[in-house]
């Protein structure tokens, strides 16, 4: 008798599963809506199917049908961030977020939505960030991510202007007497997993025998290094500098640690967006450029309101001030799909590049980094924005 009951139960259970399943099948077959254009766009890079290409092309019209329009109608920006990188992205005690990368999230939101607070932060692991970007969980990835060819190509990401030029280095204890990479032969080296750091280490140490100790979390890696389990700690030099300058005095203070001279990789860190939506990529690109340009033009968050009467045409264009021409006055529109004055919003809310740098990682912060290559081209650095015209 019970058998029949069970049969009924099973049938009901499985029918329920069926109806769910039916829902799920219809979705992938009938989805041609504009919301998924970005995905279909990705398909063109993988396949060479002509049919998908056409849908992607018709979908990506510049009239705000793409991600930009979605974000504006949604009213918030989904920004993929890190929560455990000092100076770049971390959670404050009050639950808010701060950091160099976070400021760029805020800058993009200020440009697109006029409100730097209109950001929904999505914390991501190193391993899951590209999946999240490709699957549309986030609009933009600003999570100390290195711009590489594979990521640009195979992983379906498009990188825009680099926000921070970093390089991989090695930190050792000063009293260990290690002065060069070769001195680390037959020792253990601590490294975070799932990052380019790990791959670069393997490449640099291809002829030097060593034991890699791979950790998931700086919270476990750091004690391992401090207790001398590994002799070297390799990471981006900005991170190492941050650790070094904050090293507690009772353990010898910053002088107890030495960052070796050699930089054995290029780590250009910058925002990435999903492949297939060039309009959105341009928007993010120009937000970064605007902060650089603002520094070049001497616009800061403090004086951004004082340029109403300026004669400098580039400043007038950038800040969306009226420009006189033969047929009256007009506001310059670069055709990015943003409101005029977007750059003024950006600068008013997060400041120019120099301000962002100084506030989060500059000499007066615990990280204490100097500008170095991350200075304007005028000062011999690598920051160079195309003209805004």
């Amino acid at each position: 008798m019970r058998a029949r009951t069970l049969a009924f139960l099973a049938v009901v259970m499985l029918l329920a599963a069926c109806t769910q399943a039916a829902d799920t099948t219809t979705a992938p077959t009938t989805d041609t809506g504009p919301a998924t254009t970005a995905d279909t766009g990705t398909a063109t890079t993988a396949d060479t199917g002509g049919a998908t290409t056409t849908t992607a092309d018709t979908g990506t019209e510049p009239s705000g049908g793409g991600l930009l329009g979605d974000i504006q109608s949604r009213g918030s920006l989904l920004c993929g961030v890190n929560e455990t990188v000092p100076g770049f992205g971390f959670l404050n005690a009050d639950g808010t977020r701060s950091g160099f990368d976070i400021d760029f999230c805020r800058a993009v939101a200020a440009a697109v939505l006029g409100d730097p607070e209109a950001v929904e932060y999505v914390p991501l692991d190193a391993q899951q960030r590209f999946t999240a970007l490709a699957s549309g969980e986030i609009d933009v990835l600003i999570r100390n991510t290195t711009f590489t060819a594979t990521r640009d190509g195979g992983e379906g990401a498009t990188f825009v202007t680099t926000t921070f030029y970093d390089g991989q280095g090695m930190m050792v204890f000063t009293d260990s007497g290690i002065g060069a990479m070769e001195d680390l032969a037959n020792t253990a080296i601590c490294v975070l997993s799932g990052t380019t750091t790990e791959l670069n280490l393997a490449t640099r140490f291809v002829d030097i025998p060593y034991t890699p100790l791979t950790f998931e979390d700086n919270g476990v890696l750091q004690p391992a290094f401090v207790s001398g389990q590994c002799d070297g700690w390799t990471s981006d030099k900005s991170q190492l500098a941050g650790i070094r300058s904050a090293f507690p005095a009772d353990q010898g203070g910053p002088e107890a640690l030495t960052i070796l001279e050699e930089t054995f990789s290029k780590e250009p860190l910058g925002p990435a967006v999903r492949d297939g939506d060039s309009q959105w990529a341009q928007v993010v690109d120009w937000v970064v450029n605007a902060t650089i340009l603002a520094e070049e033009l001497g616009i800061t968050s403090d004086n951004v309101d004082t340029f109403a009467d300026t004669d400098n045409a580039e400043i007038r264009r950038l800040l969306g001030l009226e420009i006189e021409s033969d047929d009256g006055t007009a506001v310059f529109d670069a055709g990015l799909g943003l409101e005029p004055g977007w750059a003024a919003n950006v600068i008013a809310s997060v400041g120019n590049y120099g301000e962002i740098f100084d506030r989060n990682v500059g000499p007066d912060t615990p990280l204490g980094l100097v500008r170095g290559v991350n200075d304007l081209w005028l000062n011999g650095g690598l920051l160079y924005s195309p003209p805004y015209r």
Partner: protein
Amino acid sequence: MTTTASRPVAVRWVKKNLFSTPLNVFLTVVLGAAIVYLAYLVIRFLVTSNFEILRVNLALFMVGSFPRAQLWRVVVALLLLAIMAGLAGGMLKAAARERSKDAGIRLAEVRGSRAVGSWLRRFWPLGLLVIAALALTRTLTPTLVAIAVVGLLVASRWLGAHLGPIPRRVGWIVVVLLPLAAYWILSASGLGWDDWGGFMLNIFLTIAGILFAFPIGVALALGRRSTLPVVRAFSIGYIELIRGVPLITLLLMAVFALGFFLPRDLRPGSVTRVLIVITAFEAAYIAEVVRGGLQSVPRGQSEAAQSLGLPALKITRLIVLPQALRATIPAMVGQFISLFKDTTLVAIVGLGDILAASSFANAQPAFNAQGLARITLPFVALAFWAGSFAMSREAGRLERRLGIGER
């Protein structure tokens, strides 16, 4: 009692219980020394450590990045849950009292100082955790909230214990509705569970995981005992598949691969994805617990019901399941505890639970690079230990109460 009178007793006790044989002398000395040393280490840690990182970040550990302006929602939800717990406990007690009165048995009532003692034995670690947390706060509000929670617990328990049979029905409806109300209040400002973090997230994942998994688990357990070979095969296959792999691999599946299995438009947040996987995982374990309960119901029960002409569905629903589920209560609490502890794994796949909060705090400018995990991790451990310990004590008491061990 005077010391002179008790000394011989004490000496005898020590001799009998500590130094009876050479082996016992040895064990007592060695272990006693170890205990003293451990106590010294703990006291040194407590006295010499600077707990500033916990003091500043207490909210981060408890609720993650939940907006601080909305914290009143957490407080209200806590108060509602306290009422629920008290009411349910009180009504269960009243029901048990009435049942035993009907059966003509007088339950030994534990009252006064003995009742307090029994409470303390079960819940002192929770008290310790609350006191430790409150000692780390800088305002009076959390203390007042804690007092209010305890007050409501006691008051609603008293109320529940003194409700008549009819109001008690209403009471049970209230008990079911209160958590829903708590969830509604927590999520009303657009802060769904995907925005939750800290210890709140661990507790939520545990409760929601068990609740969602329970019906699936019961169905799987029935499926496993079904006489239909296909249904049985699928149930066994699912249960063994899930039980054969560590939760962490399933969580990896949740963050890396679940998106591929779902239709493209369906993009659940990370907490939702983890919750789906935890539910699927937990269902298999609950199925085994329920199967154990089903096996404990004597065959004669369903045979007797059959001879009364009850249809199969009713036999399962009215005769077998109630007895089976009652027998599974302690094992279910055990399952609850183990899921509670397992929720720490979500930190590995990038969710902001209380263990992840330890990493977050250690990345802040004020605390970076100072090796303060030695302060934050013990606090996290205390939170889990207190919760698990209290629950396992409660499970032990339930087991004795229900007399399941004696069968």
